[in-house]
C-alpha cells in the first residue's frame, strides 16, 4: 500500500458553504466572547495565572504542593505548566479581558475544526450542533486551558482521521505539547491506538496504516512521560483526568454537576440520534469507537460533555443527514440564512443558560474582597473554603500568611484531606472536630451553603469578619480545643 492509500478520506470541499460557515464560526466566536465576558468563572484561571507567573519568575515547575496549603505541603501534583504560562501571559496584557478573549478564541477554533472533520456535506449543521452544545457549558469553563483542550482534541482527531501517516506522527508531537498543557493529553495515545484497532478491523489484516498508527500510539505513550512529572502523569492518569471514582465524594467531581440543559443539549440528543441510526460503517470503525468512548467519558464526568460533542457531532450529524436522505449540499442554497440562524441560536442559548452554567460551576466570582482584611493583619492564617475554587483566590494572592486547607488542585490532595474537606463542607458529624484538628482559624463560605448557617450558630467561636457579595469570611475568636 502506498502512502497515498494511507491517507484517510479527504474532506469534501464545498467552497460556498465553507466560506459561509466561516462567517458562522466568526459569529460563534463573538458569542463565546459574550458568554465568557458576562458570566466569568475565573477562579481556575486565577490559580493557573499564579502558577504561570511563578514558573516565569523561577524558571522551574513545582511538582509538589507548597506552603500555600497547610494540609498537604509536599504532596505530588501536576498541572500543565504550559497551560499555566499561557494563562499568565494572556492575563499579563489586559487582565481578565485577554484571558476571556484567548479562551473564546480557542473554543471557537475548536468548533471551527468540526467543520473540517465532517464528511458528506452539512458543515453548518455540524457546527450548529457543536456550538449550541459547547456554549451551554461555557459558563463553567472560562479557563483558556480548558478551551485549549477542546482545540487540541479537535486537532488530534482531524490529524488521525485525515492526516495519514504524517498526521499520526504529528499527533505524537501534539501529545507532548498537550501533556504539558493539561492532563487531557493522555487521551492522544488512546485515540491513536483506537484508530489502529479500528483500521485493523476495517482492513481485516495488518496494513501499513495499522502499523503506522501502532507505532505513533507507542510513541505517544512515551510522550506522556515527557513532562516535568515524568511517569507521574500517566501513573495517576485517571485522577488527573477526573474520572477516578474514589473522588466521587468531592462536589466538583460529581457527574451531575453540569447544569441539566448543557447535559441535555450536549449528550442526550446526540446519543439518541446515534442510537436511532447506528454509527457503524464497515470502513469507519473508528467512528464507533470515538462515539462510544466519548459518551462514556461524558457520563463518567459531565465536564467532558463539550469534548464528547466535539468528537461526536461530525460523525452523528453526517450519519443522521444521510439516513434522512438529506443531501448536505442542499445547505448551500440557504447557507447564509442558516449561518445567521445558528449564530443567533448560539447567542440565545448563551444569554439564557450561561448565568445558570456559571452558578452551577460554584463560584460566580472570586472573593477577592475577603483577602484584604486577613492579609492586612500581618498574621498567619489557616483558611478553610467550603468551595475549593474559592481558595484559589487566596493561593493566587501569593501571600505566604494565607495558607489554605484545600484548593482547586484537588487531585493532589490525600484522600484523608478530601474526606475532611467534604465532612466540614457537608456539615457531617465531627465537622467541628475536624476544623479544630487542623487548627483552622478562618472559614470562607457562600451565604447559601450549609456550613454558613451552622457556623453562624456559633457566634462565640466564629465571628463574621467580612462579606464580599455572597461570600462570607468567619474568623475564629477562641483557640481550637
Amino acid at each position: 500500500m502506498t502512502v497515498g492509500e494511507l491517507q484517510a478520506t479527504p474532506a469534501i470541499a464545498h467552497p460556498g458553504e465553507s466560506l459561509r460557515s466561516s462567517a458562522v464560526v466568526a459569529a460563534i466566536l463573538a458569542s463565546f466572547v459574550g458568554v465568557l465576558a458576562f458570566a466569568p468563572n475565573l477562579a481556575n484561571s486565577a490559580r493557573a495565572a499564579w502558577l504561570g507567573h511563578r514558573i516565569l519568575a523561577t524558571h522551574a515547575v513545582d511538582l509538589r504542593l507548597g506552603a500555600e496549603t497547610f494540609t498537604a505541603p509536599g504532596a505530588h501534583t501536576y498541572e500543565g505548566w504550559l497551560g499555566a504560562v499561557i494563562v499568565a501571559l494572556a492575563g499579563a496584557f489586559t487582565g481578565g479581558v485577554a484571558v476571556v478573549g484567548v479562551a473564546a478564541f480557542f473554543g471557537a477554533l475548536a468548533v471551527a475544526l468540526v467543520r473540517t472533520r465532517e464528511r458528506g456535506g452539512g458543515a453548518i449543521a455540524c457546527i450548529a450542533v457543536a456550538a449550541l452544545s459547547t456554549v451551554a457549558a461555557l459558563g463553567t469553563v472560562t479557563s483558556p486551558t480548558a478551551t485549549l483542550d477542546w482545540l487540541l482534541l479537535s486537532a488530534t482527531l482531524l490529524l488521525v482521521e485525515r492526516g495519514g501517516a504524517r498526521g499520526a506522527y504529528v499527533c505524537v508531537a501534539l501529545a507532548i505539547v498537550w501533556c504539558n498543557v493539561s492532563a487531557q493529553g493522555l487521551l492522544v495515545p488512546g485515540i491513536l491506538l483506537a484508530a489502529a484497532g479500528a483500521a485493523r478491523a476495517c482492513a481485516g489484516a495488518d496494513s501499513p496504516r495499522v502499523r503506522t498508527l501502532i507505532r505513533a500510539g507507542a510513541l505517544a505513550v512515551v510522550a506522556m512521560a515527557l513532562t516535568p512529572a515524568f511517569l507521574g502523569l500517566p501513573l495517576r492518569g485517571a485522577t488527573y483526568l477526573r474520572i477516578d471514582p474514589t473522588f466521587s465524594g468531592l462536589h466538583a467531581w460529581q457527574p451531575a454537576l453540569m447544569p441539566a440543559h448543557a447535559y441535555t443539549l450536549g449528550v442526550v440528543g446526540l446519543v439518541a440520534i446515534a442510537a436511532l441510526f447506528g454509527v457503524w460503517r464497515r470502513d469507519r470503525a473508528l467512528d464507533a469507537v470515538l462515539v462510544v468512548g466519548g459518551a462514556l467519558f461524558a457520563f463518567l464526568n459531565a465536564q467532558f460533555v463539550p469534548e464528547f460533542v466535539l468528537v461526536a457531532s461530525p460523525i452523528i450529524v453526517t450519519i443522521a443527514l444521510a439516513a434522512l436522505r438529506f443531501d448536505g449540499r442542499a445547505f448551500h442554497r440557504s447557507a447564509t440564512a442558516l449561518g445567521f440562524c445558528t449564530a443567533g441560536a448560539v447567542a440565545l442559548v448563551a444569554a439564557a443558560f450561561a448565568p445558570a452554567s456559571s452558578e452551577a460551576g460554584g463560584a460566580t466570582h472570586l472573593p477577592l474582597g475577603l483577602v484584604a482584611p486577613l492579609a492586612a493583619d500581618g498574621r498567619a492564617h489557616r483558611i478553610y473554603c467550603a468551595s475549593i475554587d474559592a481558595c484559589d483566590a487566596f493561593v493566587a494572592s501569593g501571600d505566604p500568611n494565607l495558607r489554605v486547607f484545600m484548593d482547586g488542585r484537588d487531585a493532589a490532595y490525600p484522600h484523608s484531606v478530601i474526606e475532611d474537606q467534604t465532612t466540614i463542607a457537608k456539615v457531617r458529624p465531627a465537622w467541628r472536630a475536624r476544623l479544630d484538628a487542623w487548627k483552622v482559624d478562618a472559614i470562607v463560605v457562600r451565604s447559601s451553603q450549609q456550613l454558613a448557617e451552622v457556623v453562624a450558630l456559633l457566634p462565640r467561636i466564629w465571628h463574621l469578619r467580612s462579606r464580599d457579595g455572597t461570600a462570607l469570611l468567619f474568623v475564629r475568636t477562641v483557640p481550637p480545643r
Partner: protein
Amino acid sequence: MKYGVVVPLVLAPFFVVKAIVYPPGDGDLFWQRWLGSVVLQSHALPRSLGNEAFTAAGAPWVPQEWLFSTLLSFSAAHGAAWAFDAAIALCPIVALWLVAVRAARHGATPLTALVCAAFAGVALLESFGVRVQVAAWLLIALFLLALDEDGAWLWATVPIAALWSNLHASAMLAPVLVAAAAVGVVLEDRAWTPRLRRHVLVAGACALALCLNPLGPELPRYAIGLFSSPIKHWIAEWKTTDAADISFLLGAFPLLAIAMVAGFGAPRQWKQGLVLAAFAVLLFTAARNIAVFGIAAAPIVAARLSRYLPRREPRPLTALDRGAQFAFPAFALAVGVACAVTLAREAPPPLADLPVQAIAAIDAMPGTHRLLCGDFAWCALEFPPDGGIPRAQVFLDGRADPFPVSVWRDFVAISLLQPDWRQRLDARGVNVVLVKVDAPLAQALALAPDWRRAYRDAKFLVYLRRGDGRRADAREVRGAGRIAG
C-alpha cells in the same frame, strides 16, 4: 429462545429473596398500605390530603397507586403479605422472560439474546423492591410485546394501557409510544395504509384507555403536570441519569453503546427506532427510567447485534444439545438459588433502615406534634396500617406529588440549611424534627438554642422545640424505648 430463560432463572431467586426477606428501602409501603385500607373501608378514593398533612390539608390528590395499595392492604390484612411480595418479585422475572421472547421474535441469536437480557437484568437490580414501579415493568414488557405487532394483536396494547393506568401514572407512556410507532409507520409506508390507520387508531384508543380508571381524565392531567413539576429536582429518583448509577453503567449503558454502534433499527425500519429513541431520551430524564430502558432496548439491541455476528447454519439437535437445553437453565437456577441463600442469610433485620422506634418515641411523647422528617418518606411511618388517623401531623410525606411547591421549597430550604431555614421552621409551626445522625440539619439543631434533643438511637435523632412535650423535657429517650438517666 432456548436459553432465554437463563437470565430470569438466575435472577429469580434474588428478586424473591429481596422482595420477601429484605426490609423496604423507604417508607412508601406504609402510606400505600394506609391508602389501601382507606379505600377498602370507604369504597372510594381520597381526592385530597387530610389533616394528617398540616402543611397542605385539602390539597388535591390523585392517588394513582390505588390498585397497588388496595392489593397490598388486602393481602397484609389477610396474612398474605409474603404472597404480595412474591407477586411483585415475579414482575421483573416475567419481564425478563418477555425480553428473551421478543429478542427471539426479532431474530436475535441465543447468545446475543442471553447477553442483552443479562444487561437488562443488571439495569433492573438497583431499582428493584416491593414498589409500584416494579409492577409496571411487567406491563411495559407486555405492552411492547403487543406493540411489536402490526396486525390485529396491536389492539392488545389498549387493555394493557387501561390496566397500566390503574397501576401507575407511567401509563402515560402508552399513547406516546404508540404515537412514536405510528410516526415510524408513516416514514416506512409513506402512504395512508391499513397498517398506518391501525396504529393511529390504537394510539387514540390508548389515550382514551388512560381514563379507564377511577381517576378518569385526572390521571393524564396529573401525569402531564408532573412532567414539568419542579418537585422532581428534589426527589433522588428523578435525578439525571449518570455513571454514578451502577445499573446504568453496567446495564443500560452497554445496551446503549451497542445501539449507538448498530442502531435501534435496520435502515428504514423507523417504527422500532423511534419507539426506542423515545426510551433513550427517557433514560436520561431520570434515573428511575434505567430499568424501563433495559426492558425496552435489550430485545432490539440483541437482534441488531446478531446481524453483525457470524451465524451458524441450523443443524439437527443431538442428544447432547437436548441435554444442554435443560442442563444449562437448571445450572443457572442452581447458581441463582445459591446466591439467594447467601443473600438471605445476610439480610438485615426487618425495618432496620427505617426510624420505626423514633416514630414510636415521638408518638409516646405528650402534646400535639407537627413533624418534619429529614427524609420525607419516613413520615409515612406515622400512618396507621388500618387507615386510621396518624398520631402526629406531618410536614411532607412519601405521597410527595400532591404537596404544593411552596411546601417543597420550605422543606428543601430547611433540610439543606438554606438561609432563613429557621424562619421557615417557625413559620410552619414545626415542633418535632426527625433526622439521621449525620444530617446537616441534625448538626444545626444541636446548636440552635430553641431546640433540644429528645430521642436518639444508632441512626436517628429526634429534636423537640423547647417548651413542647413538657413532661419529656427533663430526659432524653434512647433507642429501643429505654429511658436515659
